[in-house]
């Protein structure tokens, strides 16, 4: 079970790997599309990599609800609980 901080750090690494954005830029209140400029293809790659890293399943229909980094962290934390 990972803490929210650990999930955020892991997610930031995945985002950095996919987009080159600095890990510090990946903050809880940041919107994936508006603030981080992540397109839908990159978002799906991030989702699939997050599933593997955190051992969770993020259904496709759920992805559109993950607007901010915080949304993703909460979803992963709940899915792990």
């Amino acid at each position: 079970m990972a803490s929210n901080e650990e999930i955020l750090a892991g997610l930031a690494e995945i985002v950095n790997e996919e987009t080159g954005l600095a890990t510090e830029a990946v903050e809880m209140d940041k919107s994936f599309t508006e603030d981080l400029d992540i397109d839908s293809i990159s978002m799906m790659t991030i989702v699939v990599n997050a599933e593997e890293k955190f051992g969770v399943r993020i259904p496709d229909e759920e992805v559109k609800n993950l607007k901010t980094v915080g949304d993703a962290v909460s979803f992963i934390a709940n899915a792990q609980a």
Partner: protein
Amino acid sequence: MARKVVITGLGATTPIGGDVPTMWKNALKGVSGAHTLEDDWVAKYELPVHFAARASTPATEVLSRVEAKRMDPSTQFAVVASREAWADAGITEIDHDRLAVAYATGIGGVWTLLDAWDTLREKGPRRVLPMTVPMLMPNGPAAAVSLDLGARAGAHTPVSACASGTEAVHMGLDLIRSGKADVVVCGGAEAAIHPMPIAAFASMQALSRRNDDPEHASRPYDRDRDGFVMGEGAGALVLEAEEHALARGARIYAELAGTSVTADAYHITAPDPEGLGATRALKAAMFDGRIQPEDVVHVNAHATSTPVGDKPEYAALKAALGKQVDSVAVSATKSQMGHLLGASGAVEAVLTVMAIYDRKAPVTINLENQDPEIPLDVVTTARDLPSGSIAALSNSFGFGGHNAVIAVRSI
């Protein structure tokens, strides 16, 4: 009168140099880019061929990590070569609606395709990455170059196996002559040094098996040639309407005088033994460029080093050039860098332009005992080309009976 088209920018990433200056220096010196493959898959799959000619500078060392991740290796090479050609052309202002791309590949994103298939079988559909389709599509290199340079007058992908790169140059000339574009970035890329294509080409007996001596395996015109050597990389040229180039005071390498494409309609892989399709292509390119046989001083031959392929090309050159065939300096540059498949014609176009611009014919290595049935004047040490107005031809032939020829003239 057709619009005159000139070449103003060159780029390449090859087994004998990661850019044009390095490649050209080595091409005149005569080096081999073929080496034993260190990959564990060679032994794992018991491949009958243990060597290839890899790009001397990996594209991942030139591109950013994020750029490279989103591109198949073939597209990575295309972008590297095109950026060099674009920078070399020095175009600072352009109407992007008048800039086109004609960028070829022989096979396309074979690494991406096969990696995704492995992922599907080992990990299931969820793990097949969303970028898989844009990375494996054969128009991936053309699309990436268009996106990178903002080319909006169309991005085309001629696919004709090992004639693809030359056909892209042919298409580029047509795009400018027909008025559809003023500037075209054209070329070809290939990245197929993967166990499956190696197994497949070996299965058709096309590859050299000289495993104990890779540097001497690619030996076009030599009596003991036994197949081609797989290479990888890309070449790129900036073609420009002459009036566009003159208006901006561009450095002009040469004129792309004429091009042509024909088909053998003879056999799916074997060349027409009399080289009739190749002869028609050579004659058509010369006619298109208003070039007489006696103008031709240099040929960059297709010459892959296969036992059956090299001979019909000689027959075609003889038929097209007549007695001039004895006076032409012929270079078989695949002896140095192996066969870059769909990229080969583009890289050889770059070499042909450099030969005309620098007035030097590059070296054919590994010619120890010339096949007596191919009595061409093969360049084995770099040779000066004559002064005055000169022309050169570059041939490419592809499985499927594709023949493509370009004719380049000094300015």
